[in-house]
């Protein structure tokens, strides 16, 4: 099935794109396969599936969107409908991966459907990233790591600074330039 076919089939679910590939690759390169991993905002389930297949880690995926969790489950991913990390126990995960909605969006132009939720990060692009950074530490094991995809459109420095506020140090572990943005995968450690 081509990407275009998949987009037609599930118009309410964000389908794998360049950002998904970059995040999956960065996480797969760094995980050993013995971890318990959470993918937040899994969409189609692509990143979770890649991590599970490539590393053998146990992967759980969450999304707010009911269409997304259904598609992810169809792909064989263990899926939970959730708001970020709220229904997961303290210290449960060795790694958390997140390709967040990160596009800065003019509130006048929000189109209020599931695809907008998958893309829009509010006015500054960080409306979902900031609460994620505030809460992800709770569900991480003591040596746990976060792989967070950010775009130059979102402001990588601002995200690094916000992560620092919550006790994380950030390292860029993958970069890929595109015509209108550069995508970066940040590795966050405490």
């Amino acid at each position, binding site marked *: 099935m081509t990407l275009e076919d998949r987009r037609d089939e599930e118009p309410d679910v964000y389908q794998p794109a360049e950002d998904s590939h970059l995040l999956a690759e960065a996480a797969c390169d760094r995980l050993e396969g013995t971890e318990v991993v959470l993918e937040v905002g899994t969409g189609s389930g692509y990143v979770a599936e890649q991590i599970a297949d490539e590393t053998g880690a146990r992967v759980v995926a969450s999304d707010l969107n009911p269409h997304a969790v259904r598609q992810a489950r169809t792909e064989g991913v263990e899926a939970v*409908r959730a*708001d970020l990390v709220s*229904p997961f*126990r303290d210290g449960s995960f060795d790694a958390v991966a997140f390709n967040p909605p990160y596009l800065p969006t003019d509130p006048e132009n929000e189109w209020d459907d599931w695809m907008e939720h998958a893309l829009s990060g509010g006015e500054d692009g960080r409306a979902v990233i900031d609460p994620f950074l505030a809460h992800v530490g709770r569900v991480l094991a003591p040596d746990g790591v976060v792989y967070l995809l950010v775009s130059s459109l979102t402001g990588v420095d601002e995200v690094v600074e916000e992560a620092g506020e919550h006790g994380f140090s950030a390292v860029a572990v993958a970069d890929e330039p595109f015509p209108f943005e550069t995508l970066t995968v940040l590795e966050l450690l405490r």
Partner: protein
Amino acid sequence: MKESLLDILCCPLDKHDLELADAEYDGEEVVGGDLVCTECGEAYPIEDGIPNLLPPDMREETPA
């Protein structure tokens, strides 16, 4: 969902343990029933094998 998922899930409101109620199985998979908070009693439905652990005020199907 697999029953072992209960080891990493908690109530999204008060973070207490959840227990499985009225479970329906398809082989090893739990495909229906509820996850009930042992503290506040809130019930979270399992729909087509997927637990819906959104807080009650976010549970609607339509985008916010």
